């Protein structure tokens, strides 16, 4: 279980994918958000399509806005979502 990351989806993305979270096994050394995304997309064509349809996809790692180059480690929480629209 220590080699899992939790992946979350929000808003239009969550709705389109039809699920709000996913547990993904990764290599112990970790990988970039970009590589994690590619790994998820390889396994889930529906997620690949939903992510591709988000031209301004945002990512947060452990609840902090991050870049796609950020390194993800086992145990991290990674969330993908469209641009935020609060207020």
């Amino acid at each position, binding site marked *: 279980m220590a080699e899992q990351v939790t992946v979350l989806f929000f808003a239009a993305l969550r709705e389109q994918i039809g699920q709000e979270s996913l547990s993904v096994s990764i290599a112990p050394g970790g990988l970039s958000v970009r590589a994690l995304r590619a790994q998820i997309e390889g396994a889930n064509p529906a997620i690949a399509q939903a992510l591709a349809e988000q031209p301004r996809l945002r990512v947060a790692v452990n609840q902090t806005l991050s870049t796609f180059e950020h390194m993800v480690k086992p145990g991290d929480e990674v*969330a993908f979502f469209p*641009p935020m629209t609060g*207020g």
Partner: protein
Amino acid sequence: MPVHVRVQAAPFDVGQQTERLSTLSPHTGGVGVFVGQVRGGQGLRAMTLEHYPGMTEASLQALAQEALVRFELTGCTVIHRIGRLEIGAGIVFVGAAAAHRGAALTATTFLIDRLKTGAPFWKREEYEDGRAIWVDARETDEEAARAWLTRTP
């Protein structure tokens, strides 16, 4: 506490929140407030606010702390509602108290500009004809938030 942040389904009480800001310090000379509410028109019936529990509270707390220091406030408040809200319902309350009016009003604008695109909330609109639409982030909102990166103070 000079900083007060809440994410809640319940309505907020503007009078009570402004009173809190007014009475935090005898050195307060002005309190600025902004209330965002669900704007009717074009057949809109209601909207639902989704958020990212945990990250929301943390990002609003960081935003409020930044405003407190940057504008030398005596206090500030950010309250954001979640869930389904009908036309006219309050969505967000931001407020800032300071010695002088300039800091209070500038901080109020800063808080709402930065909150709009910097905290993990998403709006889903429901229309009378049955359509449900996720609101797109407006480029003007993202510009308003970015502008604070180069402004002084």
